[in-house]
């Protein structure tokens, strides 16, 4: 049985998994490792954009420069400002719905090195177009951001990155909460369930509320 000593105990493996250079989001109970590719998927109104804005807020507020590849041009800077994103530290690239340009723009950005985060937003693009994206794109991004401080974030409605991503999260929406009665109602909050698709040791699932009252 001596040869079995070569195999590390599971607890030790788990320790090695957690890196020191991590970005913690206390409000979501999540942490992201720099130099990796993270995928965030989910149905409409499930909270993907809110989570991404929280990450950008965390990074830009300390002076890091982040970039957003807005594939369809749907980004709303007003929401970003309310989420605490320092807009002066954000580079916004609008691709006008051209998927090829979006991927090339993301490639240029990861080549520049040094961005706190690069967010490739593919949320509003047609699903059939995204299914045709070759897998080697994702592996290329993964290799490019490796050993850099950049967090490469991808948002889509359905998971498409596959094994190239280090972490993959999936949001599912729950009914929204409204307050007021009759015709005088206001949106109060969105509720979502977050599932980590790659947390092998402790399958994680959390319920998150997105507040709309102060918006």
């Amino acid at each position, binding site marked *: 049985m001596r040869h079995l000593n070569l195999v590390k105990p599971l607890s030790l493996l788990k320790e090695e998994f957690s890196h020191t250079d991590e970005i913690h989001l*206390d*409000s979501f109970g999540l942490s992201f490792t720099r130099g990796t590719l993270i995928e965030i998927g989910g*149905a*409409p*109104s499930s*909270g993907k*954009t*809110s989570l991404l*804005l*929280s990450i950008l*807020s965390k990074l*830009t*507020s*300390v*002076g*890091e*420069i982040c970039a957003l590849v807005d594939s*369809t*041009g*749907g*980004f*709303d*800077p*007003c*929401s*970003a400002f309310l*989420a*605490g994103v320092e*807009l002066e*530290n*954000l*580079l*916004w*690239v*609008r*691709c*006008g719905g051209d998927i090829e*340009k979006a991927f*090339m723009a993301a490639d*240029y*950005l990861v080549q520049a*090195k*040094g*961005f*706190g985060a690069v967010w490739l937003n593919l*949320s*509003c693009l047609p699903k059939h177009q995204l299914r045709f994206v070759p897998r080697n794109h994702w592996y290329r991004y993964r290799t490019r951001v490796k050993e850099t*401080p950049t967090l490469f974030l991808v948002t889509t409605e359905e998971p498409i990155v596959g094994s190239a991503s280090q972490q993959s999260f999936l949001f599912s929406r729950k009914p*929204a909460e*409204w307050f007021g009665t009759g015709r005088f109602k*206001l*949106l109060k*909050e*969105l509720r979502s369930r977050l599932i980590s698709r790659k947390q092998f040791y402790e399958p994680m699932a959390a319920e998150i*509320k*997105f*507040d*709309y009252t*102060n*918006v």
Partner: protein
Amino acid sequence: MSKLYACIISEDAKRDKAVLVSVAKQFSYSIETLEDGVLFDVSGLENLIGDPGQLIKNILAQLKANDISGQIRIADTPDTAILLARSDSSHLFNDTFEEFQNLPLQDFPIEKDTLDIFHDLGIRKVHELRQIPANELIGRYGQQFKNVIDVIEQKGNRRLQPNLKENSVGWSYDLDFPIDDFEQLIFVINRGLDQLLYQVKNRGFSTEQLDISFKLRTKTERSYEIKASFPTIEKKFWLKLVNLRISLDPPEAEIVSINMMSWFTRPRPDQRGLYAVSRPASEDLQLTVNKLKNMVGEENVGVPVLLDQRLPKAFNLDPERFPQGREKIEIRSEASIVAFTYFNPPIPAEVFVRDKRLLSIKTPHFSGSVRQYSGVWKASSKWWDKPWRIQEWDIEVENGGVYRLCKGRRSWSVIGEYD
């Protein structure tokens, strides 16, 4: 090697200042502008051009070419050159020494009382004053009179003080034959940049603006103003930037000549803070932004800017600005808020309404009954404008999401989703 100084005195130096300086620049780098002219160092030019007489002829030819006139003199000391040029003597002398000896004393820095005494004694010119022993003059008029004697003996210790504040350097090149494709000129531009940035570096400056103008075969000129967001003299960076900028909007005709000008700025301090966060190197950021602008269009890359107005889309993208990497002092809570995303273009919708209540919605992408809604809101505060007529609702669609619904005059559309 003895020093030689040239001085040009003009009748209207204020008017002619720029021309005088440009003429002086053709002969020297060390130039001092005077109230009534310009003084410059021409030492060593006797090997290139000839004796001082020939040098004066050349300078005079340059002045004539620029349609101005002036008194030009060349001497061993700056004082002598200035005094001779200012004397404006119409009498021709064999050499400058003889001319200097005949200069009137009132041109020299001598007090008026002393000048009056000299006048009463019949001493009016330099050679007359030189006959009096220097010790006697110093003993009578004080130690400060020694400076006057030094000037008279052409031993003045005044030095040329370059006071011309240069703020740019230029480089130009005339092509042997017109070139249509700008990319063929990259090697020429590379050489030009090499020389230009070397000059900038030698003067202890850096640059963040480069002006390039091409003279075209159609006898027109095409100019480009290329700016970096930071000072740098890295040639590779400037060459890439020039290439990206010009390929975005190339000249419309064949290029005949190139003119480049680099503007001086203070060099960038290279020191960073101990706890500075990582960010892309300024050169990399600028080049990446320019590459992106080349690909998706200039108006689609930049920094988001909010507008202080109540409008449907109260924001802009500023393509002129670069991300600054500025740290925010204000600390906010980490509470997550509901974000909004626009659909671009808006999705047309069919909405079923009964008793002024939204019942269901049908679009090419989703459909379902409206679970909850709030509204109606006005999209804009500009009541005198068209968007005032647009009405908005926030709707939650069964098995869908939470959307913002808009109604124009007759048509409905979904302009975005809460996410």
